[in-house]
């Protein structure tokens, strides 16, 4: 839905360059003239926030590598060296460690926004699947990054997660040994995780490029969930409207982020990771970083090793099939009264699974985790397909402009 670029360079040099590489025109049509639906709310600012977080993580990460040593004998001490000796090292490291958490906060909001407003539905299936791929890459990147400080949680988290692959029948043990480069998590493992942790963010950046490209082909969804029909009436230019709204959302988000960095930098971490890795002693209670907890709860809810691993990966993979599991023709939950209830129960179930993932795996916790796991999968496999057939939806506005006018009837009529 991108219109023709109206970009005309004002200078002679600009025109000379533009006729040879029209990159300024591409930027102009993508981020200045690009038409955005006029009814976007603040939940739509998280795309820009995520872009900022990716850049922030890459910048702080590249700096940390200048002071970090990827070796089992030195890694832990080099982190303390960063914290105590390197100029501003404490701030850069806390920004990076909390930045990972903020990245996931933003991506979960971004994903739930898509889930609420039906952003995965035609014609945005490919856009959504690219997002699922980015999310998977983020999880892999975050996991490997957490191993690098070589604390107790780093080591044992790496041990538990790499052992997940040993559940694969026949070749599982060979794959695990191959991942480790030895018979346990050790120096070769640390080195390859470091290499991949540096690589994956750039792969994320590449897929983000595809994600944005796909977005600009099909156009943004919006809170009304109806497509743009008239560019003049339904949309406004990206700059200044969306640019400034995104900037304001980003500032609020940065306040939240900074509060963690400067006031409670270890709140989201784990004290055990300030103990150097010891292959002979497992911490009493291994927990992954908070953003993996719901999946960890699903893993432990299934009383079988292979079954637990399949359920955990399935919980992520099922997101890619969402465009075809949801049979409703109405996109936005604003016009789906029953779906809206199930959606919020789903959010609660995810939070509940997150809590259960942080608790020891016994008694009532396991039973609760099983119930919530059943709901997690039931939401996608049973509720979504059936609801589209039976739900009585509210009338959907004919156009985005109508939706805006209906909401602000009094002020609109005053014009």
């Amino acid at each position, binding site marked *: 839905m991108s219109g023709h670029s109206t970009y005309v360079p004002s200078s002679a040099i600009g025109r000379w360059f533009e006729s040879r590489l029209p990159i300024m025109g591409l930027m102009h049509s993508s981020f200045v003239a690009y038409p955005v639906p006029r009814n976007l709310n603040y939940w739509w600012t998280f795309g820009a926030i995520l872009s900022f977080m990716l850049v922030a993580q890459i910048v702080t990460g590249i700096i940390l590598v200048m002071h970090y040593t990827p070796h089992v004998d030195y890694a832990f001490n080099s982190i303390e060296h960063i914290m105590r000796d390197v100029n501003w090292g404490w701030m850069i490291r806390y920004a990076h460690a909390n930045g990972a958490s903020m990245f996931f906060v933003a991506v979960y909001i971004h994903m739930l926004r898509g889930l609420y407003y039906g952003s995965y539905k035609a014609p945005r299936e490919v856009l959504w699947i690219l997002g699922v791929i980015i999310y998977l890459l983020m999880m892999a990147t975050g996991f490997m990054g957490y191993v690098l400080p070589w604390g107790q949680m780093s080591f*044992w988290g790496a*041990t*538990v997660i*790499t*052992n*997940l692959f*040993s559940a694969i029948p026949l070749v599982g043990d060979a794959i695990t*040994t*191959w*991942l*480790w*480069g*030895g*018979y*346990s*998590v*050790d120096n*070769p493992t640390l080195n*390859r995780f470091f290499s991949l942790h540096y690589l994956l963010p750039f792969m994320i950046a590449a897929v983000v490029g595809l994600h944005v490209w796909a977005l600009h082909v099909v156009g943004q969804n919006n809170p009304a969930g109806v497509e743009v029909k008239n560019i003049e009436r339904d949309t406004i230019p990206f700059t200044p409207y969306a640019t400034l709204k995104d900037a304001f959302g980003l500032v609020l988000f940065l306040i939240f982020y900074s509060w963690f960095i400067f006031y409670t930098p270890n709140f989201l971490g784990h004290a055990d990771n300030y103990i150097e890795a010891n*292959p*002979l*002693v*497992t*911490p*009493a*209670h*291994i927990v992954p970083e908070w953003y993996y907890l719901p999946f960890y709860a699903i893993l*432990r809810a299934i*009383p*079988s*090793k*292979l079954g*637990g691993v399949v359920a955990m990966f399935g919980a992520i993979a099922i997101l890619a099939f969402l465009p075809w599991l949801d049979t409703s023709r109405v996109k936005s939950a604003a016009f789906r009264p029953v779906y809206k209830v199930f959606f919020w129960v789903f959010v609660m179930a995810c939070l509940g699974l997150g809590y259960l993932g942080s608790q020891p*795996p*016994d008694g009532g916790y396991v039973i609760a985790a099983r119930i919530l796991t059943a709901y997690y999968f039931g939401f996608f496999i049973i509720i979504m397909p059936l609801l589209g057939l039976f739900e009585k939806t509210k009338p959907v506005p004919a156009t985005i402009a109508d939706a805006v006018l209906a909401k602000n009837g009094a002020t609109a009529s005053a014009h």
Partner: protein
Amino acid sequence: MASASTTEPTRRDMLYIATGAAAAVGVGAAVWPLISQMNPDASTLALASTEVDISSIPEGGILTVKWRGKPVFVRHRTAKEIADVQAVKVDTLPDPQADSARVKKPEWLVVVGVCTHLGCVPLGHQGAHDGWFCPCHGSDYDASGRIRSGPAPRNLEVPAYTFVSDTKIQIG
């Protein structure tokens, strides 16, 4: 149908297939080292065996030694522990194995100290069977290192080892 006779193979088809096959073999040969380099290297393989003096382990005691980067438990079992694990009906176990198949001498049990669920180190003299208990996900092992309850699918692995003398074993 009259159109069936047009697909006689030509010398050019043969050249395409041969080129494609050579390219596939070439790509495979080029990728193989890139994949293989991630497997354990020569220095890791060289650390494959270790000798342990077991004379200092008291009856009922467990010595933990490091072998291939992993803990190995050497347990000097008491007469009661031996009697208990030998009395268990083998076919009631999740991973049925007689105690006699897991030891060379009944008083000495040697097992890899890595939970067969997800690789944590189980804690000795804990759990319902006073064997090992894994704090990560609750797997319970007996004094023969056999899984009795919990998510672990298999018994604790018995490494290859030999008695060099009455007081010394070589693991690996």
